[in-house]
């Protein structure tokens, strides 16, 4: 616990690493997607923290970035999960290691 900013940044780093490790270690596509979401959220937390501790908080740049990032994440999740469902319908599995065919 050095300074407040460092706390948030380290929490974000931990969250990011947990997400990354999960995305690397789990088999299920949905969980990999959750891991990616965690990484994205870690980045968002960084933005908010830097906005809060930055010198130009009134410009709202960090906040705006997070707002757009959340919107984009929503779109990404919608499409990603639709893809998972479509793949599952075709292959009867959502296990990533079984989905390595590069041809339709």
């Amino acid at each position, binding site marked *: 616990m050095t300074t407040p900013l460092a706390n948030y940044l380290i929490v974000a780093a931990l969250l990011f690493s947990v997400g*990354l490790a999960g*995305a*690397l270690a789990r088999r299920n596509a949905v969980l*990999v997607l959750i891991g990616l979401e965690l990484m994205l959220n870690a980045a968002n937390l960084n933005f908010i923290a830097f906005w809060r501790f930055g010198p130009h908080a009134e410009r709202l740049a960090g906040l705006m970035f997070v707002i757009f990032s959340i919107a984009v994440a929503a779109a990404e999740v919608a499409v990603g999960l639709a893809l998972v469902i479509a793949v599952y319908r075709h292959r009867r599995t959502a296990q*990533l290691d079984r*989905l*390595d065919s*590069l041809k339709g």
Partner: protein
Amino acid sequence: MESLVKYVWIIPAAPLLAAGVGALLPAGRRRLGAGLAIGAMGVSFLLSCAAFFTTLHPGRAACNFRWFEFGDTAVPLGWVLDPLGAIMLLMVSLVSLVIFVYSVGYMAKDGNFTRFFCFMALFAAAMLGLVIANSLLLFFICWELVGLASYLLIGFWFQKPSAAAAAKKAFIVTRIGDLGLFLGMLWLYARTGTLLFYDGGHGCLEQLGAGGLAASTGISLLIFCGAVGKSGQIPLHVWLPDAMEGPTPVSALIHAATMVAAGVFLIARVYPLMSAESLEVVTWVGALTAVFAASIAVAQNDIKRILAYSTISQLGYMMMGLGVGGVAVGMFHLITHAFFKALLFLGAGSVIHSCQDEQDIRKMGGLRKLMPLTFATYAVGMMALCGVPLFFSGFWSKEAILDAAHHWRVSQAPFYLGLIGAFLTAFYMTRQVCGVFFGTPASAESGHAHESPPVMTVPLAILACLAVVAGFFGTPAWPWFQSYLEGGRAALDLSKIAAAHQLPILLLSTTLVFAAILLSGWIYLKAAARTSREMDPLEAAQPAVFACLNRKFFIDEIYDATVVRLTAVFASVSDWLDRAVWGGLVRAVSWLALALARLDRAVDEEVVNGGFDACTETVRGSGEWVSRLQNGQVQRYLRIIGLAFCALLVLLLWGSQ
């Protein structure tokens, strides 16, 4: 005039549009096709009237625009509105309109009705475009379009071999003249740098004011070549009688309003270019043609052929008029001739139509009672053509030509040739009328003839009126036409008819005409009871001369024996040259090329391909090695990305120190 000239382009554009739309119509839409063409022609006619009335105030307006440019050279096109063009516009659109209406009746049973009107509209559009053209280039384009349309129309019944041959002949023969026109055009462009007629003082016709054109004799003679081809002058007249193979309205259109008039109009349009020498040539060619064609007409038996030779002859008169008397004289005869010749052709069409497509006058006769209206209008046309005095337009226009010829300073010969032509004209026309309308029917078809429907007779009546009235605009007593073209004002002065220098010529030609009519009438009315197997009275009297005339002075045979044979010989020589000499050369080159190619192939296969194969093997091998990284396991990608991220971070943070 300035305001109207911007819209003059609509006059040819309307029938052109009708032709374009008509070409897309299905064959069954007959009423629409005809209505479109006639409606478009009506629009053109109304606009032509408007254009004509604006030109009553003397002046000339041109509207030029840039068509395209290459390099520094711009090619301008444009149209012009002046009295010469306006009167032509009026005549062409009016006659075309009347002929269109007539065609509705004449072509009623034809299966390709829609196509016919499409071609007719194209024909009229091309002619109208030619009339308004202010550039020799645009003129030439329309000129060729006229040729194309005439080809299509003469060969309209292309199932008949004779029609197909006639269309081809018309196209090729006129093309010989067009070659001259094209050369003249190029020469003119080389000398003046412009092909615009009028361009605010820079047009090719306007540059002549300052001293004239050095080469204008050559240029004008070349241009005259085109007119000779189009207007059927000696020696390129051979296509015109054959053009009778087309439907009769087409013949009427070709002979009266459009095609043959184009040549005369060309000379009238470029009249400032014509030097005295070339005008002499024009005069001589015209005078010779007039007599030559008239004499052939005497011995013809086909009703349309007689009219065709008469057209050639009258065109000769027009050329002669242009040569000796200027634009006004020639153009006046062109206009009057357009009306009565259209009338005569349409009348002949009416006759042919009612006689089940019979064209031989020896098989006709006695139609006067069966087709009274046709007879009456035909008689008006015949008298106008013969030049029966005072009340018929042909008289006044021919008198103007003869008068001008009489006063020609170079020679009196054209004048006498003209007189002979007038005599012959009256003779053969009387012969024709006697053969067709008097006596008794010589065949079953003519016996069952009947009057044509109103859609055909009404145009005849209109044209008959015009054939009478048109003459009064150019009498010596009231030379309105001449002053209109020259921008002056005419005054009525009856005493001029009786002027000392006019009267003897008037009387002389009148006497000749009446003598010819009486002579011919006496010969042929007496023989009107003959059957078709009997010989013509003239033939009985002078078989050799008649045969010569009947075979058109053997011109076609001469051409066959000389020009065509020569061409054929030349073609076979060319063929031999091509096969033996050039072919051998080409074969030698090809062997050489083949040998080189073999060598090349060897090099290619051994050296180049080998090298490439080695390269591609390497690339493929490395590709295979790299592709092992991309095995579809997305988590492996993510792993690599994570490692790469670490490497990047380390590099960014600590690498720079």
